[in-house]
């Protein structure tokens, strides 16, 4: 990576670190927190969908399981949320392993994989609605007792820093994928699974690792959500909307790129805030989301990031 890019990223990180000190408007801090959080969840989708090419329509299943895991540990057993977050990480990875083992073992690819993940999310939603320990349809209310052990804060900046840390970690994971042999395997599987296998890549194992990493991230994200909003129920934990948002930010920003989800999240949430500011009608921002998704697929298949990378391409062509 060029020195200039590194300097730019370092400056960006410093700016992100001191942002809560510069911004007096606490609402704006909340918006930034959500943007970062959404970028984090998007990155979780991106690892499986963008790098490994396995499009999931039900990635919310990891998020919801994580949210329920830490919330049940906290409210039923009195276990602090930071331990809950670790439990949620493993729970998310376990659900990832479960869904992944079944889907990949039986060779589901492409649209079939998308559909089965959607169905898994649906099954989890119905189950969460029907069993006792999740609070059924009533959901779980989480007590607000600010403190680092509980990952709850009076000042929105507390949540902001946690979301920032999550985002930085997720960027680091994607960065590692870009550089590592494992990441190269995933990309090979994405481009042509049969060819990758023929070259000796264990596609099943790589896809399992990818879905488990994705699941672990989603699980931790669930804990963060529950501690911030202090309430979860089956539609929040396992609803389609979150799955869609996860893939939306990645695709809009640029699938299979390190900064795609972050860029996508900034743009989509920016659009959302602006439309909400001018027209206060339900649904309008989502209409815009849908149109952006269609336009990106139709005209910018590499996402917004592709706009910048596109310039380098003619040079590559000359080399070849």
């Amino acid at each position, binding site marked *: 990576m060029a020195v200039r890019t590194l300097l730019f990223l370092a400056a960006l990180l410093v700016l992100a670190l001191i942002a809560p000190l510069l911004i007096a408007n606490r609402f704006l801090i909340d918006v930034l927190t959500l943007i970062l959080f959404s970028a984090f969840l998007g990155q979780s989708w991106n690892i499986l969908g963008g790098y490994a090419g396995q*499009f999931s*329509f039900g990635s919310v299943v990891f998020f919801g399981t994580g949210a329920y895991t830490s919330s049940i540990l906290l409210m039923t057993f009195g276990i602090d949320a930071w331990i809950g977050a670790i439990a949620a990480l493993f729970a998310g990875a376990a659900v990832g392993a479960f869904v992944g083992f*079944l*889907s990949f073992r*039986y060779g*589901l690819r*492409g*649209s*079939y994989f*998308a*559909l*089965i993940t*959607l*169905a*898994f999310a*649906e*099954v989890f939603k*119905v*189950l969460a*609605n*029907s069993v006792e320990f999740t609070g059924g*349809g009533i959901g779980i209310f989480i007590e607000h007792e600010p403190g680092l052990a509980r990952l709850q804060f009076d000042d929105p900046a507390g949540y902001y820093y946690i979301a920032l840390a999550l985002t930085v970690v997720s960027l680091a994971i994607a960065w590692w994928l870009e550089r590592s042999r494992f990441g190269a395997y995933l990309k090979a599987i994405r481009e042509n699974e049969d060819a990758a296998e023929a070259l000796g890549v264990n596609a099943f194992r790589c896809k399992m690792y990818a879905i488990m990493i994705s699941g672990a991230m989603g699980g931790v994200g669930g804990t963060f959500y529950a501690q911030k909003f202090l309430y979860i129920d089956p539609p929040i934990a396992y609803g*389609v909307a979150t799955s*869609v948002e996860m*893939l939306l930010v990645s*695709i809009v920003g640029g699938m299979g790129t390190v900064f795609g989800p972050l860029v996508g999240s900034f743009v989509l949430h920016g659009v959302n805030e602006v439309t909400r500011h001018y027209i206060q*009608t*339900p*649904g*309008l921002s*989502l*209409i815009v*989301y*849908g*149109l952006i*998704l*269609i336009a990106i*697929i*139709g*005209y910018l*298949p590499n996402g917004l990031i592709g706009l910048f990378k596109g310039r380098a391409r003619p040079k590559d062509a000359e080399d070849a």
Partner: protein
Amino acid sequence: MLSMTMMPAAIVNGLMFGAIYALVALGLTLIYGVLHIINFAHGALLMLALYATFYLFSLAGIDPYVSLLIVVPGSFFFGYALYRWGIGKLAHGRDQNILLITLGLAIVFENGALFLFSADQQTIDVPYAYESLDLGFVFLALPKVISFFASLTICLLLWLLMAKTDMGKAIRAVAKERQGARLVGINVEHVFALSYGIGIACLGAAGCLLLPSFYVDPSTGNIFVIIAFTIVVLGGMGSFVGALVGGFIIGITESVGGLYLGESLGQIGISLIFILILLFRPTGLFGSKV
């Protein structure tokens, strides 16, 4: 056991609903069979058909069964145009792009409906809504009986269209071998759009038949998305008979499941069938082996 005596009633009710499910799934399976794409906007388009039927009734006073004559052709042209000048142009021929574009369309339609029609559930009040037929062991609401037979008739008409007409022959040719079809002079893009239009016309019919005994709100379509996919996968992607049989199986599963497991847990049966079929027999009951 109490539920044993209710069992036949549950099965018959399941069959009634299953016919509508079959009609919805038929559109999906046709689109899959010919275009090899998964139309994720299927539920949202059904929702639009339901709204069209609803407004034809409430604004113009047209009976839902009469509006079949308007909504079905309207849906066909809408579907045709949507594919010809929308989906087909934007997808660049990649399957996953189509999946995402139809997902985008579903988001736009659903929230467009929310924006224009509000989130309120709408029902219509037709004079015959509460009339019923007595079969001895079960009372059946008249609208459900009508929709049952109408759905079967439409399935039969569609089969005739595919089997006996030149258009059907062209569609089947494209479904089997699109390059070959292009070589013998079939306009493949036109046939793709035709198939998509016919698939959406099935939804138009389902909307008209469904509304008298159902309701519509912007998220109605979501109920049918998983169900329609389950039926199509169960029956075998692209199989007409499969969609019909799958529709009945799912309709019965749902009503019997609801009887034994309760309203909330009963829905799990459908998703579980879906997952199990995808895992163990992805070609479905009537699908050809790949």
